[in-house]
C-alpha cells in the first residue's frame, strides 16, 4: 500500500511483529484451526471458522480502515526520553531500544490523517506489540496532538486502542497522560467535533480509564478484553474464578459501556456510515 511504501526506510512490508503470526501457517487461538497467511490477511486477521480476532498492529489496521494511500503520519519519530532513569530488572532505556528494534516502531501509537470513503479524518492506532501498548508521555502527547489537529481541522477523530494501561516506567508522568488526553477530548467535544473510539483486544487500565471510554461512540471488536483492572487482579480481590465472558466486548455492551460490537471486516463501512449520520459532509 502506498502510504507505507513511501516511508520504507523505517517500515518494511515484510517486517514481522510478535503479534503477527510467523511463517505461512498459523493456528487460531480461538478454535485451533490452521489458517494460511494469505487467507488470514484476506479475512482482516480474523478466523473464518470462529470469528476470533487476532491482535494486529497499526500498520495492518490502517490498511483496511483508511482509503488506500491516504494516510499521512504525524510525529512518527517521537521517542521516550526516560525522564526518571527508570530501572527494574532491566533498564527502561534498554526496553525502549529493544522494542524499537523488534517492532520498527518508535512507540505504542501511530497517529496521522487520512480519508475514510473520501471523508477527511484524523486517526490514531495503538500497537500492543510495543511494551504492551502502554501509555507514557509519547503516547499521551501523540494522542493529544492528534486531538488538537482534529479540533483545528474540524475533522472527526478515530482512535483504535489496544493497551495494557499506563506505562509504569514513566510513573507519574504516565498517569498524567490520562488527564492530558481526556482534557483534550473535552476541548474537542466543546467544539462539536466527533470522536469515535474503537476498542480492540485488549484495552485495559489507564487507556480504558481515559480516552478509550470517552468516544461519542464506543465501538468494540468482538471478544475483546475491555476493562479497568486486569482479570488476574480481580480474581485475587474476590478470591474466585471470573464468570465466562467477563470483561469481553459483549459484556461491555450488555452493561452499557460500548454502543456496538462490530466485526473487523465491517469496521470501515460502519465508521463511514456513522460519520455520514452524525457529521456534515
Amino acid at each position: 500500500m502506498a502510504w507505507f511504501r513511501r516511508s520504507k526506510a523505517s517500515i518494511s512490508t515484510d517486517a514481522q511483529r510478535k503479534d503477527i503470526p510467523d511463517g505461512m501457517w498459523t493456528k487460531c487461538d480461538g478454535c485451533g484451526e490452521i489458517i494460511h497467511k494469505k487467507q488470514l490477511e484476506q479475512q482482516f486477521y480474523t478466523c473464518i471458522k470462529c470469528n476470533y480476532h487476532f491482535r494486529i498492529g497499526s500498520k495492518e489496521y490502517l490498511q483496511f480502515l483508511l482509503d488506500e494511500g491516504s494516510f499521512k503520519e504525524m510525529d512518527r519519530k517521537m521517542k521516550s526520553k526516560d525522564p526518571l532513569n527508570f530501572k527494574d530488572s532491566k533498564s527502561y532505556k534498554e526496553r525502549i531500544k529493544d522494542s524499537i528494534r523488534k517492532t520498527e516502531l518508535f512507540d505504542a501509537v501511530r497517529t496521522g490523517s487520512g480519508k475514510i470513503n473520501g471523508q477527511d479524518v484524523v486517526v490514531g492506532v495503538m500497537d500492543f506489540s510495543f511494551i504492551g501498548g502502554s501509555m507514557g508521555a509519547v503516547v499521551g502527547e501523540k494522542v493529544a496532538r492528534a486531538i488538537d489537529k482534529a479540533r483545528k481541522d474540524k475533522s472527526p477523530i478515530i482512535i483504535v486502542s489496544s493497551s495494557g494501561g499506563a506505562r509504569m516506567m514513566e510513573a507519574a508522568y504516565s498517569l498524567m497522560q490520562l488527564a492530558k488526553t481526556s482534557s483534550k477530548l473535552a476541548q474537542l467535544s466543546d467544539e462539536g467535533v466527533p470522536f469515535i473510539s474503537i476498542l480492540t483486544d485488549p484495552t485495559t487500565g489507564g487507556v480504558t480509564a481515559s480516552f478509550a471510554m470517552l468516544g461519542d461512540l464506543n465501538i468494540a471488536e468482538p471478544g475483546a478484553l475491555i476493562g479497568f483492572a486486569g482479570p488476574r487482579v480481580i480474581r485475587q480481590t474476590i478470591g474466585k474464578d471470573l464468570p465466562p465472558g467477563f470483561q469481553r466486548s459483549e459484556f461491555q455492551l450488555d452493561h452499557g459501556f460500548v454502543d456496538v460490537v462490530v466485526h473487523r471486516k465491517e469496521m470501515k463501512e460502519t465508521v463511514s456510515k456513522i460519520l455520514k449520520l452524525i457529521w456534515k459532509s
Partner: protein
Amino acid sequence: MAKTVLEFEKPIIELEKKIAEMKKYSESLDLGEEITTLEEKVNQLRKSVYEGLTRWQKVQLARHPDRPYTLDYINMMTTDFIELHGDRSFRDDKAVVGGLAFLDSEPVMIIGQQKGRDTKSNVYRNFGMMNPEGYRKALRLMKLAAKFKRPVITLIDTPGAFPGLEAEERGQAEAIARNLFEMSHLPTPIVIVIIGEGASGGALGLGVGDRVLMMENTWYSVISPESCSSILWRSWSFKEQAAEALKLTAPDLLAQGIIDRIIPEPLGGAHRNPPQAAEILKGILLEEISKLKKLKTEKLIEKRIDKFSKMGEYEE
C-alpha cells in the same frame, strides 16, 4: 501521642516519653538542665531522621494509621459541613465523602476519599477504594458546586480504585474517564490536595484541577510500590527499590512539574500534630482559592487544560 509507631519513629518517641516523665518529677527534683539537654537531643534526632527518610519510609508515613483523614481535615478546617450522599443512580459510596462547608467565610464543596481506622470502619469505607458510583457521586457534587459558583476542593487519599467484579460491571474505567473529562472543563476553581496516598487512576479520578498540592509526607504515582514490584520484579519484596524507581514523593513530583506546591507538615508528620497540619492546609487553601477566583472562567479552564497538556517528556 501516636498510637502506632513506625520503626524509624521509635527512638524519637522513646526520648519524648522520657522527657515527659522527667517533667512530671521536675517540680520535686531539679531536672531543668537535663531536660534541656534531652530536648536538644530529640530535636537533633528528629531533624536527622526526617531529613534522611527514604522514599519507602515516606510511603509508610503517608499510610500512617494515625494520620488525619478527609473527615478529620473537614472537621478541623471547616464549619457548617453538610455531607451530601449518593450518585442519584445506584447508591452512596462510603469510600468517598463530600459536601458543602465554610472554609472561614468561603463556601466550598469539599470531597475526598475516606479510609477507616479499624477493621469495622475500613470495611464500611472499603479502605478508601472507590467504586464507580463514588466517582459519579463526586462528579455530581462538583457539577452542583459549579452551578452555584462554589470552588471545589478534593482531598486525595486512596490505595486505588476498587478492583472488584461489580466495579467492572458498573464501569470503573468509564467513571474515572468521565471525571477526568468533566473536571478538565468544570467552570469553577478546583484545588487538589494529596493528603495521604495517591494511587493511580483511582486517585486521578478526583485529581484534575487548577492547582495540585501535595502534603509533605505523601506519595502519588501510577502504581503502588508493592504492585510495581510484583509486576516488574515478579516478586513482592522489591517495594523499596520500586518506591525509589517510581520517584513518587512530593519533592519528586514538584521537580517533575506534576504538582504545583508542597504543603509543609508538622515535624514528624501530620499525625504528630493534626490540628497544626489542618491549620497550615487551611491557610494555603484560602490563599490558592482567592487567587483562582480572580481569573475569568474561560481563562481558568484554558490554563487548567494547558497545565496538564505540558506534562511529560519526550524526544522529537
